[in-house]
């Protein structure tokens, strides 16, 4: 029996004779530090725990240990520090590596691994449903045939639907098969920041080399490159270099390349040159499967009925789905109750009954629309018939009609005192276009999402 197994067995016995609050408080982060024939030393996290175990629970602990290991006569406690941290502290009080970490602290990246991947995200724990099977298959293919299957792979879909999970899974899968491969995962914000740092440090050459020597480049949330011209240019060159050398590129975005505003044409056409796959909202069965997988992962027992309830009521977003389940788990563990359907309904009552839509105002709509299309509010209101302004203006009017149910005359007055017939025309025109044009539909969907978030 290993020390760890021994301690688990002891804890199991102690748990029965001590109240739950006391048990979790005093036995959290404890373990066996060392053990020989007749003595055992227990690691405890702090001085309070040490005092308490020594003075209050010593008898229980000794008895529980003797039940399993009758030869033990003595139990001692010490405040535990893992061996490695102590030695590190002594030897390398001043070392250069640390200084480097310090200087990069400003970039808020404390991760040491080169790939910046989170090992939690793998294909193994990804749930495939009709909403994402195409994207999933494409990702899988990419991870099998690097650079040749689909290059670039472009995945888009709304927030919290698993894009990042898929992207990171590709990286993790490749590293699992061949740890020597150079995988680079970055959000477009990080890419931009690194570029800015390189420019201000007059070190662009090093930057170029880092990004052009890798086997697979994964950039998350590429839509944030919109409007950043220098970054786009640099990305364009990186993209070309990698592409010409048959290196894999994977990108994600919250909308298709066509719908990303202020993206240079040459980049857009390149994004569309490979495989584009979308991820939609999960259907009921997928949601239920996700919940089941999550509950199993956390080793939490919950009846199907309760999972069913969660899956039925939280529909849009996987992250929210997970949040709801976490809430149920947390509360049930806290008061030690069983998550039957009644309990679950109670716990989630205030999440689910929240009105899904907060009220919005015409002013807010104007602001979001102007941000989204990157045109100043003034231009939306002023007299101006340029095409790139007319469309956002009409969309703003459409949204005022659909989202706030404003009357046409009041919409007209919001948009610079225009006639109500103008507003009617805009509403009808956009309604018509939505039916025929996927891009507009997608854009409006995104604007609405921003309106309420």
């Amino acid at each position: 029996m290993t020390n760890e197994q021994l301690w688990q067995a002891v804890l199991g016995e102690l748990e029965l004779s001590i109240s739950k609050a006391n048990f979790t408080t005093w036995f959290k982060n404890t373990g066996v530090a060392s053990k020989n024939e007749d003595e055992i030393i227990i690691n405890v996290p702090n001085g309070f725990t040490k005092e308490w175990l020594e003075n209050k629970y010593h008898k229980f602990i000794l008895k529980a240990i003797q039940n399993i290991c009758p030869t033990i006569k003595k139990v001692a406690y010490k405040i535990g520090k893992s061996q490695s941290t102590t030695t590190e502290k002594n030897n390398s009080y001043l070392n250069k590596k640390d200084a480097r970490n310090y200087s990069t602290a400003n970039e808020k990246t404390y991760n040491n691994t080169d790939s910046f991947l989170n090992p939690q995200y793998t294909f193994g724990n990804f749930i495939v449903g009709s909403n994402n099977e195409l994207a999933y298959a494409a990702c899988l293919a990419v991870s099998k045939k690097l650079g040749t299957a689909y290059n670039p792979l472009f995945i888009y879909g709304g927030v919290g639907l698993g894009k990042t999970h898929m992207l990171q899974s590709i990286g993790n899968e490749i590293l699992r098969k061949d740890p020597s491969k150079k995988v680079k995962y970055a959000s477009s914000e990080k890419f931009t920041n690194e570029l800015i740092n390189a420019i201000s440090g007059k070190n662009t050459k090093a930057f170029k080399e880092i990004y052009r020597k890798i086997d697979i480049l994964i950039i998350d949330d590429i839509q944030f490159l919109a409007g950043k011209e220098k970054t786009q240019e640099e990305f364009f060159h990186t993209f070309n270099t990698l592409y010409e050398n048959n290196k894999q590129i994977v990108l994600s975005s919250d909308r298709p390349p066509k719908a990303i505003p202020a993206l240079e044409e040459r980049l857009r056409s390149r994004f569309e040159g490979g495989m584009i796959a979308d991820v939609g909202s999960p259907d009921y069965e997928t949601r239920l499967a996700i919940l089941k997988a999550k509950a199993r992962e956390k080793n939490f027992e919950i009846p199907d009925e309760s999972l069913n309830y969660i899956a039925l009521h939280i529909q849009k977003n996987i992250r929210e789905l997970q949040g709801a389940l976490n809430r149920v788990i947390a509360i049930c563990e806290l008061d030690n109750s069983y998550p039957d359907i009644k309990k679950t309904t109670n716990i989630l009552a205030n999440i689910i009954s929240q009105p899904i839509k907060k009220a919005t105002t015409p002013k807010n709509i104007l602001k979001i629309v102007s941000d989204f299309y990157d045109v100043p509010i003034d231009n939306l209101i002023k007299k101006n018939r340029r095409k790139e302004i007319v469309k956002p203006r009409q969309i703003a009017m459409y949204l005022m009609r659909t989202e706030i149910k404003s009357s046409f005359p009041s919409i007209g007055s919001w948009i610079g005192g225009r006639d109500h017939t103008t507003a009617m025309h805009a509403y009808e025109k956009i309604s018509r276009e939505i039916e025929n044009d996927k891009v507009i539909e997608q854009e409006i969907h995104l604007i609405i999402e921003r309106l309420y978030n």
Partner: protein
Amino acid sequence: MKFICTQENLNKALNIVGRITNKNSTLPILNNVLLKTEKGQLKLSSTNLEIGVNYLVGGKTEENGEITVPTKLFANFVSNLPNGNVEIKLREDVLNIKCNGYKTNIKGLDAKEYPLAPKLEADSIFKIKSADFKKALTQISPAISSSESRVEITGVFMNLSELNKNKIMLVATDSYRLAEKSIDLEKDNINKEFKNILGNINSVIIPKDTVQELMRSLDESEEMLEITISENQILFNFGSASIISRLIEGKYPNYKQIIPDKFELQVIINKNEIIKGIRVASLFSNVSNNSIELKLLAGSKNIEISSETSDLGNNNTKIPAENINKSLDILYNHKFLMDGFNSLDGDEVFLQLNNETLPTVLTSAVDKGFIYVIMPTRA
């Protein structure tokens, strides 16, 4: 238990002991304060399992005993009592409190259930005037990081490696700014055996919460504060109080090498003037990174502080300054800059810079032991 003391003393004790916030919701008794008669005095203790505070209240003990009562309730009640003598009496598990016309019964929980404060058997390392230590903490504490992602900088780094030169160093940083205070100790106040007691400990990191508790509890007096250190705990003894706290494990970043040792510019300014200027400029600071701009023009007798927000407007303030021998425009987070100047002593302060990307150092003419380093923000 029966004990009589003044309302002022009891109230003061509860102000010190009762502020510890309980993060551990699983053990309800941690919301209580422990009252115990000890050596003719009443000992109040509270803990959140990371830090433990004890405070002795002088008074008359007529009967020994111990109990725990809800801290907030007890403290609120005592603070509302009139000045005068307070009599507390324990009857089974109910504490009854009498003071002038007030009579109250508070239900308590058994003291046996209360966590025992850990003991630190070692001898103390050094003593320092409470007022000096409090001031040093007040100067550097704004820079302590709150970021959960790097626990090692969420506390004050106390460097003991120069104790043999009668010196300790206190440091705080959040990686955007850094404050360092070196304190000279009197030789007589350092335990001669410190090397043996400390062993291979040459620095400790004191958690932020403990630092805040210390700043609240320490008086600005000549009273000595005694510090005892072990590998993972630190004990502060002063007056009637003692605070024991865990230490943060981990390695503090090697901050020394980010502090430039040469400066191209050493501008002399009046502290109060520049603080006023920053305060005004902060109203128009850049929304995304809270930055304001300092403009230095070679040969000029003024520093210009300016800020602009397209929605609100802009501001421009000129502050008299001396010794500007190089032109430079540089951006700072206004809050970080303000914290820095506020921590400096005296009226005459120095702004030492090299260029718009390297760290800037603030020092004052009167307090040589304190420096404040701030990273400029990028445009």
